[in-house]
Every structure is written in C-alpha cells, then in structure tokens.
C-alpha cells in the first residue's frame, strides 16, 4: 500500500481496529479486479442479489469486464428499487417540473433531506421515511431503526434534530398478528426516540385489514440549522480524508437493501431473510452531539449517513458528488465481527454510522471531538481526482468503478400501468346505496367504539413529548408546534415557531389515488394552518404494492400526479420523501397509501392557536363548504 494509506492507519481512535495485519484473512477466495479480468466467464449470483440479467449485462458493459464480487455487491444494492428509485423516478420528476417557485426552498429533492428557510437566518430540514418490511419481521427493532435512520438523514444536513413524528398503519385491531406487531412497533419508536431525547409531536395510528401482513411504519424527523451552515453529501478536494465514524460494522441486515426491500414475504424469500438490524439509541445520541460539535468546529467538508446500502452508498454517493474519485482501504473498516468478508462489509446495514470528508489539517481536531464523545472513528480513505472509486483489501484491488454509474446512473424503468380491473365497479358503488341505519344511537356508539376513532393515548403516552422543553403543541393537537428560540444556541432572538402534521388515507386513495393523495395533502396543510402557521413545504412517503403490477403502478402514477398538481395549486414544494414499493402479501397489495407531511412557520409562536373550546360563551363558526 502507498505511504498515504499507512498514514491513515494511525488515524483511528478505535481500540483493536483492524491494523491491516492482525485480522484473520482467508484471502484464497478474494475476488480481485485482476481475477475478474482473468475469469470473465465465472458465474455470479446476480439474480440472488435481486438483479435482472440486463442490469448485470450493463454493469459488465460499464466496467468492460465482469464485476468482482465486491463490485457486484455495490451495484446490486445501489441499483435496487430502494436505493435507485428505478420504477418511480420517471413519475417523481413531476414534483420538480410542476413545483411552484418558492424562495423558501434552500435544498430541494435529491439530497438526504430538503431544507427550507424559516426566517431570521434559520432553516428547517425534514423528511419522512418508511421502515415497513423490517417492522413486520421484528417490530421493535424494525421500528426503532426506522427512527434512527431518519434522524441520521436530518443530522447529515448539518442540523440538530428537534422532533420526530410517526405515521403508523396496522391490520385490524382485533386481528391476531396486530397483537404482535403493534406493541412492538410502538415500543421500538418509544424506546429509540425517547432515548435520543427527541420529543414526539404527532402522528397517526390507523387500522385496516389490508395492512395485516404488511404494516406501515413511516417516521418523520425535523431538524434546525443556521441557514448558512447547510452540509451536503459531497466529497470535493483531492487529498481530503474519508472518515467512518460511529458504531462498528457487523453482519446486520446483510443484503437487506436488495433482498429485504425488494422481495415479498412469500415463503421462499423467508429462507433468504438476512439477520435484522438492531439499533443502539445510546450510540446515536452520542453521534448527534458529536456531529453538532464537529459542525461547530467547522471540520467537516462533506457528510453522509450510512443507510440501507451502508458503505456502498456512502462511498459512491460522496465520490460521485465531489471531485470524482476516492481511494478506500476496506480492510480498515472497524468490525464487530472480524470474519466479515469485503462484500459483506459493503452491504452491511449496521446502524449508527456516518461518513465524513475532512481536510487533512482538521483530522486531529475531528478525532479529538469523536474521542470526547466516545465515538469510534477511523480514516479509511482519501478523495482523489481519478474519477474512480478504488477499494483495496489488504493491498489487493477489489473495486475499481466510476462512482457515478452506481450512485446516479442506475436503471430507469417506464413500467407499464393500467387502471385496476375492478376500479370502475368500486367507484360505482356509492354510500347512497347503503341502507340507512335504523337506530342512530347504536350507529353512533359503533362509530365511537371503532379503533380508528378511539383515543390513541395508549400509543402517545409511551412517547416523551416534553423533552428539550420546546414543545408548544403535541397530542391531542392536530399538528405539532415547536418554538425555536431555545432549540439551538444563537436562536434566542427569534419569536418564530414551526408546525408539522402528517396525514394520509389509504381507503380514499384506493377509490381514487389522484384525489386521495390530494386529500392527504389538504388535510396536513389544514392541520398546519389552523395552528396559525403558514404551510411552507411538503415531504411524502409513498407506500404501494409491487411496481411490477401494472394496476399498482397506475395507483402510484395517479397518486404522484395528484400530489404534484395539488402542490402546484397550493404553492408548496415537495422537498423530499421516500417511496416504499412491494407492500403486499402474496399478490395482494395494500391500499395505496401516500402519507404526506407538511411543515409550516408561525411568526410569533406565542400566538399559536390550540384546538378545542377554551371557555363558555365563545361563538362557534363553521368555515368552508
């Protein structure tokens, strides 16, 4: 190895970190670039990794040879539906093309999270993301790591996370599996969010039998930052160091991104089920405080959280958006399980990890801050201007690719779609045809007793809504409201606050996905507006069945069109979000469920409006039609 990488060796505060020599290293099977060139016809398990034949052929074309197994790992996760948005991209473009002009938008779609200007020099960043499949497999850990993941997205924008919300969908309240899934999911969100010290300021709990085999766990996080201190996932400047920091890498959710996120829960896929990811909220809390101190000290050039595709995603995306190249010594990645192979390190979904790009002169300061917070940190590579992402394993080159081809130039599909067979009949059946209830009292009691209308206190009382002392409104209000003057040092002068709401209705969307998505936006928009806040920006989590099913794809395209049109009409931009496909049991998809989050700003947070009557003698006025 070069002298450069030997210097990297010394830049680690991790006890027992791989030193390049001390690890068991059965390298007889190591698939190097050289070996790949020499064995062009070796059979590779691209199909098992969820790749189609033509996708695999394209990789070969890009590289001019077969990929090494490590390269295959990278392309398979990066080109998975989950990471590449290959089925949704062509539709999501409308959010950009139809977007209203908005001066408030500082960072739009495509980054880890959108950022909006909230005035007085401050900005808010927010995003909602799904963790549906993992929450079905292991409700507690699945939901917990869903919160952890979205919080890291917000941190990576340079912000302090200040609150979370959760939009949940379960099967029928009386169905047996709901008893397993619901308490675990709520406990997971509660434990992780409470441990991080993030108030939970709202969300939804909806029951419908269509979610029995596929619950929805959508978590939202909002963060605050100075407008001039936005961080991006970029790696400019040849010679800058690449630092991996946070938890050690273990065999968590290996293959999860491609296998878990793009397969259904049919029996044969159960056998392939990778080990679940387990979260450590304590580590994440330290990581939050550590990152904020790193930003304060101004020692971070670019930063990226490690999400579903772990090291593969962070290295390819950082390199693609920077000077263009990166050298990484994969054997320097500190491991929890020393037997991990390079392919597994690349695909590991271990939680609570971040990757930063740091100028060489700032490395010592960076490491000192990590040490203060007891955060393991290791220099694993360096930015180059080679235009290639090159990874070595004990001196052997195992990855040599143009990073953009993995990060940005994945496949794009124009999937066929058509209206579902029964759609017209479904719409023809009108509530007007139903018999009128004879006993209104019984009907009312039935409504009041229905789980969807009942109090959600069993859930919300498990969430800390007071921590950090900035919660102005939370449950039972329809929108959460936070003051910002005390949320971060330096904000004392502002009187502003932010309001957030999430809404969605799968039954409306099933009947008419175009209108259903618009109704979800309208409801969240109203909920924010009634607190006294001006709605500014939208995030969304689009939960649908398989994109390979043309009827689902129709629902999806209609919902996106509806949401984009409504955003245009209301004058609020979509700043980011998440698409979750393959939400189905066997071939039966869930109701199409777009969940929409709206963020608004209130100029004087002391003037927020509560819901509910506050005194006798007040006049009651009905607005609208």
């Amino acid at each position, binding site marked *: 190895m070069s002298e450069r990488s030997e210097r990297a060796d010394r830049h680690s505060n991790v006890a027992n970190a791989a030193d390049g020599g001390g690890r068991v290293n059965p390298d007889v099977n190591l698939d190097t670039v050289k070996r790949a060139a020499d064995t062009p016809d070796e059979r590779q398990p691209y199909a098992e990794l969820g790749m189609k034949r033509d996708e695999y052929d394209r990789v070969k074309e890009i590289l001019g040879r077969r990929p090494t197994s490590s390269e295959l790992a990278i392309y398979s996760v990066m080109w998975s539906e989950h990471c590449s948005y290959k089925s949704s991209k062509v539709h999501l473009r409308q959010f950009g093309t139809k977007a209203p002009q908005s001066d408030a938008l500082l960072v739009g779609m495509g980054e880890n999270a959108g950022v909006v200007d909230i005035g007085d020099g401050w900005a808010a960043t927010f995003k909602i993301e799904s963790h549906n499949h993992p929450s079905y497999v292991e409700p507690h850990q699945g939901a917990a790591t869903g919160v952890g993941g979205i919080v890291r997205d917000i941190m990576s924008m340079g912000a302090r996370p200040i609150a979370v919300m959760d939009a949940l969908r379960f099967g029928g309240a009386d169905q047996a599996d709901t008893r397993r899934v619901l308490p675990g999911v709520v406990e997971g969100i509660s434990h992780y969010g409470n441990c991080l010290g993030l108030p939970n300021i709202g969300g939804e709990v909806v029951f419908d039998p269509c979610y029995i085999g596929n619950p929805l766990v959508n978590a939202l996080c909002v963060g605050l930052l100075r407008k001039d201190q936005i961080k991006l996932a970029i790696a400019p400047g040849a010679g800058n160091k690449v630092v991996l920091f946070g938890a050690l890498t273990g065999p968590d959710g290996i293959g999860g991104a491609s296998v878990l996120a793009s397969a259904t829960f049919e029996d044969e896929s159960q056998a392939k089920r990778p080990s679940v990811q387990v979260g450590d909220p304590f580590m994440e809390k330290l990581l939050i405080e550590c990152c904020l101190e790193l930003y304060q000290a101004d020692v971070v050039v670019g930063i990226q959280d490690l999400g579903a595709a772990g090291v593969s995603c962070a290295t390819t995306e950082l390199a693609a958006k920077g000077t263009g190249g990166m050298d990484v010594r994969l054997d320097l990645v500190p491991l929890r399980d020393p037997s991990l192979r390079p392919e597994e390190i690349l695909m590991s979904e271990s939680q609570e990890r971040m990757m930063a790009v740091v100028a060489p002169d700032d490395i010592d300061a960076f490491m000192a801050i990590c040490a203060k917070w007891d955060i393991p940190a290791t220099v694993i590579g360096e930015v180059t201007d080679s235009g290639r992402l090159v990874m070595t394993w004990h001196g052997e080159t195992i990855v040599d690719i143009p990073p953009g081809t993995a990060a940005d130039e994945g496949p794009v599909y124009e999937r066929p779609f058509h209206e579902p067979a029964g759609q017209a009949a479904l719409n023809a059946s009108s509530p007007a045809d139903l018999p009128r209830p004879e006993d209104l009292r019984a009907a009312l009691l039935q409504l009041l007793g229905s789980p969807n209308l009942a109090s959600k206190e069993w859930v919300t009382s498990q969430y800390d809504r007071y*921590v950090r*002392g900035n919660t102005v409104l939370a449950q039972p209000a329809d929108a959460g409201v936070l003051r910002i003057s005390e949320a971060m040092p330096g904000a004392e002068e502002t009187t502003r606050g932010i309001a957030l709401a999430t809404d969605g209705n799968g039954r409306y969307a099933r009947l008419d996905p175009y209108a259903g998505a618009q109704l979800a936006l309208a409801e969240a928009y109203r909920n924010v507006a009634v607190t006294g806040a001006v709605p500014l920006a939208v995030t969304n989590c689009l939960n649908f069945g398989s994109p390979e099913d043309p009827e689902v794809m129709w629902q999806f395209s209609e919902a996106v069109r509806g949401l984009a049109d409504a955003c245009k009409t209301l004058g609020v931009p979509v700043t980011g979000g998440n698409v979750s496909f393959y939400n189905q049991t066997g071939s039966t998809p869930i109701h199409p469920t777009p969940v929409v989050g709206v963020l608004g700003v209130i100029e004087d947070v002391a003037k927020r409006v509560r819901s509910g009557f506050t005194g006798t003698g007040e006049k009651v006025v009905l607005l609208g039609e």
Partner: protein
Amino acid sequence: MSAARVGVVTFPGTLDDQDAARAVRHAGGEAVPLWHADPDLKGVDAVFLPGGFSYGDYLRCGAISRFAPLMEELIPAARAGLPVLGTCNGFQILCEAHLLPGALMRNAGLHYVCRDQGIRVENTATPWTSDFTEGQEIVLPVKHGEGRYVADPATLAAIEAGGQVVFRYTGGNPNGSLNDIAGIRNEAGNIVGLMPHPEHAVEDLTGAPSTDGRAFFTSILKKLVNT
C-alpha cells in the same frame, strides 16, 4: 450580589440538561454545566442531576453513571451537605449511588409512561421544597419506563416515619411505586430525588400545562442567597 450557582450535570445520554439549566436561569440563578468526565464541581452551591438515559440506561438505569469521575467528587460533597436534586434518571443515579435509600424498577405496567401527573407535596423541610406548602397538590409531567420505587419493609417504614417521603402520586399511581411514592429525601434533607420533572413545568408556552415546577428552583435559590 452574585447569582447563586447551580451545577447541571451532563452524562453521555443525559437529555434534560438544557431544560434544567433554563429553569435555573428563569428563577434567577446561574446554571453551571458540569461534565461527567471532569472530577470538578466548579465550586457550585447546589447540583441538579437531570433526567435522560445516561449510558443508554443499559444494565440498570443509573448503574454505570454513578461511577463517573464527577460522581467521585459529588458523592462525598452530598454526604457533607451540598444540596442535590435528582429528577428521573437523576433520582435513579442517587439511589444507585446509595445517597438515597431504595431502588427504582420497571413500571408495573411494563410500559414507558408520559403524562401530566397529580402529586402531593408531603415534606417542605428540604432546600428544594421550601416554597411549597405541606399537602399542596401540584401537577408535573412524568415520563419514564423505570420509576417504580421499592425498598425493603424496614427501610420503607423508616423513611415514612422519618418524614423522608417528599412527594406522593395522586389521582392514580403511574408506575406501581410502593406507598405511591414519587420522591424522597435523605435523612439530612439536602438530597432529594423524584421521578416527575419540575424543569418541564416552568413556562406557560411550553411543556406541561402547569408552572408548578418553578417552586423547586425558587426554593433552592432563596436558600442559597440567604446562607
């Protein structure tokens, strides 16, 4: 006259330190940040151990924190009479450090509970509760998963007889605590621990729908200014 200085301790995983510091400032005191790894009390006049999940609450709440370098200074100082208030995780740490009798266990309902809780003030003979009146009913938020106070029968009888029960839950016990105990003090009275959160009940705009927490901070500041 310089403001009374109240130390606010931060362990890895402490969450309510900024709320505690804010509450001290609102009452007119100076909040002095104390870091778990520095064995230095910085000459403060009193110490607030705030809530959170120090060390992730792994093993047992407060079990690891009590060995922090700062605690090596704090424990003898508290034994010698330094006023110390621990809320939630701070209460757990005080019990683990044996500065207060008994222990805090998993809630009887086995769930984390966040709610606005009725509480009766049972004892005002502490530097943290002198601005209350005995028998006063107040509302403070509780938010914890492990707040069930337990002690062996002899200890329980002794703290009841000695006036060491400072707060009791009213209107429903959120966690199954013995004798509805929400907070206790040591024999000398300078150390108080409670599960509820006074620092989340000091402002009209935010936090719980009460400002009953203010009296904790006005009590200690009066005491410090007058001595």
